[in-house]
């Protein structure tokens, strides 16, 4: 079996004195679409921030392609799309996508622009390079953020709630884009979401976090978990049931 792309061992994380997750271990294999699930406040986004390297764990070990996730001062090893897109508002969409390329490569401007056009076409935003982020709709902003994350040809991309706040059509389109990138480019995707449709449509494997036990309460294929689980918390999540029902 090939080495996992991401490995997390006995992770403890939280904010200040509050521990959100303790003793969490899991692995993400290459080519996977790995989903981090759980109710509100269980630490999904915080876990993602730890995997990206934006936060430092209280204890435990995280390895991404064999290295600890460190960000600053080096060309990006993986792409990240934030929940709001987080496009630089003072730059056009094209400049956003070109930003890292210009810094970390010595490509001439024409070549950078050609790559930017191709990346924007990949996410269905042909001709939007001169628009400002404020002129785009929510779905377009997220697509542009994916294009920016993809600019440096990463083999791994992190997505924080890609379909949150999108209309159903845009959400489906975004799911299809994620699937296409995974199938055609072999891109490994790690995403946080609680949109059930997205989870079943794109998710190949998942972990479900729980706030009370501060640990992983289920792991595996989302479709299988939906039917096979005996845990009422997991069943409730996948079948939209409240505890009482």
């Amino acid at each position: 079996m090939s080495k996992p792309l991401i490995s997390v061992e006995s992770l403890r994380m939280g904010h200040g004195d509050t521990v959100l997750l303790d003793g969490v271990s899991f692995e993400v294999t290459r080519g996977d679409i790995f989903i981090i699930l759980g109710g509100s406040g269980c630490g999904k986004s915080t876990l993602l921030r730890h995997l990206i390297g934006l936060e430092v764990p209280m204890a435990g070990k995280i390895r991404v392609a064999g290295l600890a996730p460190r960000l600053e001062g080096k060309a990006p090893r993986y792409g990240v799309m934030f929940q709001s897109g987080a496009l630089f508002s003072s730059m056009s969409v094209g400049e956003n996508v070109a930003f890292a390329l210009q810094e970390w490569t010595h490509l001439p401007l024409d070549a950078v622009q050609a790559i930017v056009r191709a990346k924007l076409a990949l996410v269905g935003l042909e001709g939007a390079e001169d628009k400002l982020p404020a002129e785009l709709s929510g779905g377009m902003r997220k697509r542009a953020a994916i294009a920016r994350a993809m600019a440096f040809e990463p083999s791994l991309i992190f997505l924080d709630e890609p379909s949150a706040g999108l209309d159903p059509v845009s959400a489906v389109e975004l799911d299809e884009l994620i699937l296409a990138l995974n199938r055609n480019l072999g891109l490994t995707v790690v995403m946080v979401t609680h949109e059930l449709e997205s989870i079943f449509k794109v998710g190949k494997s998942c972990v479900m976090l729980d706030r009370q036990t501060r640990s992983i309460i289920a792991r595996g294929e989302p479709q299988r978990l939906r039917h096979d689980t005996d845990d009422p918390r997991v069943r409730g999540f996948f079948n939209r049931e409240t505890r009482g029902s």
Partner: protein
Amino acid sequence: MTDAEALERASARFDERLSLVMGMLQRFSWRRVEGDAYAVRIELGGSIAIDDAAALWKRISELAAEDLEGVRTVTLDMTDVDRIDGACMALLGQLRSDLQARHITCEFAGGSGEAQRIVDLYGGRKKARHRRARRKPLSAVEQVGSATLSVLAEVRQILDFIGQLAASTVAVIKHPKSLNLRDVTLTMERAGADAAPIVLLINFLIGFVMAYQSSAQLKQFGANVYVADLVGVSITRELGPLMTAIIICGRSGAAFTAELGTMKVSEEVDALRTLGFMPLPFLVIPRMVGLILVAPVLVLLADAIGILGGLLVAALTLEITPTTFLIQLQSAIKASDVISGVLKGMAFCGTIALIACQQGLATSGGAEGVGKRTTSAVVSILFALIVLDAVFTVALGAFGL
């Protein structure tokens, strides 16, 4: 309808509205049926909507204020209620909670159609929820303690920031190409060129007012010509750099904090880090360098225009010719006065950029957080400027400058 009739109708509508708001007009029925000594039955009837909430609350308060000694159940009979809205149902729910807290069972009975649906929606929960314990207000000692701890935490954050900034500055000096020149020039344009008109205007007025205020005193001693000394020295050594710094604090300091704060809360700073850029060299150092570079230009402009303001007053009210003024000025101010003012201005601008950017990057909590940090940045900068000014004055005095 005549105007008089229309006025009368409007007045009647106003009276009715006022009575409803005051709870004096009751359009629904509230009938108390005494059963045995242990049970109270209230029969409600009619349509009870938000307009009737005041009257309903009055009846509820009357009932809740009663002794109700020995009463075990209160039944609210909704059979004759045609319609009740959520707000009024919430008031009845509150009555039930209050009664349950006094160990009196309160039940809703009857109600059909719409009224029953509202009862189910709002009245379904039988158990009174425990009220969250009200937070105890902090005593004066606790408030002082908590404020001291938060100030210490803030000082620690600033010291951390200065440490990181020093390390980043060393890195930028080693690799000058890594400096974000685009932001340096942008800062110089926005904080320098764009600020020039207001810096000129304010400093002109400062020189003008200072000369004008002192002219009456100087006249008494026939020391008119010393207005040049007074204006020249105070503008170049003190007021030129200080007023310029205060203007830059208001214009650019606030803008830096708001801009970086907004970038922080909208995850743009995190996005920057994921693309391999370090926020300090990329965002903070260019702003600092830009401000420090424009400081000498702005301070010299401020000096020149402030002195011009003084010269104008001298010529108009003290009958001193511009030539005499300038000759006197030449003997009054030394190069060290101007240089120390420029150095002060550069130190002030460095401090403004440092505090503004630190506050911006420490922002959390959305739009409100940005507002709070911007206010706090401006206040901290103004305080730091005055302290720094005092330190400069004492230090330069010690060196005989």
